[in-house]
């Protein structure tokens, strides 16, 4: 692997200063499950790697009346190991438990999954569905960006050189809400999503009072499917509604054909997954 320097600062200020000083030639290291391979294969060529796992803010996992605060470096196995996340933010636990195998889950963070900005990243649709916000720190202070606006294109985010994703903030879950993430892959595990769908719904009796659906691997970045949300809100929680929502999802995407699936197949699977994910999210909201 190419030569680089390594620092493991224990404060956020020190990490931001190091990244800013190197003006784009430094990379943050969380679990390294993307970064180390990207350096080895010369897709990235940093002169400095800044290990961010020793910074307390990036390891936070805290529930309060305001919701959930999740540090950007918290690994997947810690996420699905948290009982409250499993119950209240189930879509996030679903995503964390299908990223790679256990060896990957013990290292890979959801923050890194998001910052890597892959179109098929399995955590991003769940973050979008659950309404998470990115807290970003940089040389000019802090700013917040909703997750659906964080990825700009494949491999690129809104982060400027010197900026770091600190945490993801999730609003508290209203009563009567449920969420789910599911992907289609040809194997049972260890594969990249052909399509991934995350959804969160809130029920008022039998009526869907709120819905957020996000689609992954069907565009250059994961999408918040506003038209699908609109097709759900105010409707009864029935198979007919889910089917109609699946049709709307099919009509708003423009996926590519690649080795994992043709455009036609992706469009078809998107509708099927939207239906299934909504059915499960509603079942969870009811339980």
């Amino acid at each position, binding site marked *: 692997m190419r030569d680089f320097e390594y620092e493991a600062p224990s404060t956020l200020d020190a990490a931001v200063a190091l990244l800013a000083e190197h003006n784009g030639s430094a990379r943050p290291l969380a679990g390294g499950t993307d970064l180390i391979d990207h350096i080895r294969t010369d897709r990235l060529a940093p002169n400095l790697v800044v290990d961010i796992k020793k910074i307390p803010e990036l390891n936070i996992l805290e529930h309060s009346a305001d919701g959930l605060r999740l540090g950007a470096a918290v690994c997947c196995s810690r996420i699905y190991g948290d009982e409250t996340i499993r119950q209240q933010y189930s879509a996030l636990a679903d995503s964390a438990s299908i990223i790679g195998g*256990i*060896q990957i889950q*013990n290292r890979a963070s959801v923050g890194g999954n998001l910052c890597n900005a892959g179109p098929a990243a399995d955590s991003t649709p769940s973050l979008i569905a659950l309404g998470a916000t990115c807290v970003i720190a940089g040389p000019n202070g802090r700013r917040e960006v909703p997750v659906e606006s964080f990825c700009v294109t494949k491999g690129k985010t809104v982060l400027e050189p010197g900026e770091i994703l600190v945490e993801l903030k999730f609003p508290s879950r209203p009563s009567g809400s449920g969420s789910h993430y599911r992907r289609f892959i040809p194997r049972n*595990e260890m594969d990249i999503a052909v399509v991934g769908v995350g959804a969160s719904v809130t029920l008022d009796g039998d009526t869907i009072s709120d819905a957020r659906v996000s689609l992954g691997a069907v565009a250059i970045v994961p999408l918040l499917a506003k038209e699908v949300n609109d097709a759900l809100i105010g409707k009864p929680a029935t198979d007919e509604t889910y089917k109609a929502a699946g049709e709307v999802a099919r009509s708003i995407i423009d996926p590519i054909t690649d080795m994992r699936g043709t455009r036609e197949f992706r469009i078809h699977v998107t509708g099927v997954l939207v239906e299934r994910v909504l059915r499960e999210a509603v079942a969870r909201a009811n339980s």
Partner: protein
Amino acid sequence: MSSKRIVTCTVNGREESFLCKPQQTLLEVLRDVLDLTGTKEGCSNGNCGACSVLMDGKVVDSCLVLAVECEGVELETIEGVADHGHLAPVQNAFLENAALQCGICTPGFIMATKALLKQNPNPSEQEIRFSLAGNLCRCTGYDKIIRAVQDAADHKIA
């Protein structure tokens, strides 16, 4: 050129200090610096699990860990599994079930199995298959490995 760092950590219960460059992976240091060649290299990109070791009790792919990240951690490799020259139950279960052919995946499977059984002493077949999905084997077809893990869990083999 980056300079070498000194890293101190515990390896199989013994404190070790080694010199490494920031770009050296834990896998490289285990094999080339500490001469612990039981940990195998398959893919070097996180897909095969041949390089699995326990880091603070959790199974990780050592090809995706920088050796400099190991300051102060506790590592366990395949060399630390047998007890004073006596094979551990998991190792015996693999032998008794013929759960290996060429053997290159075996150290990784044993480390992943150790981590699984510590967390879940009685896993179902489904749970075993799911937990070992990060370990690939080109020879056995997996069934014998699954049976070995079930035997190790049942303590059928001492």
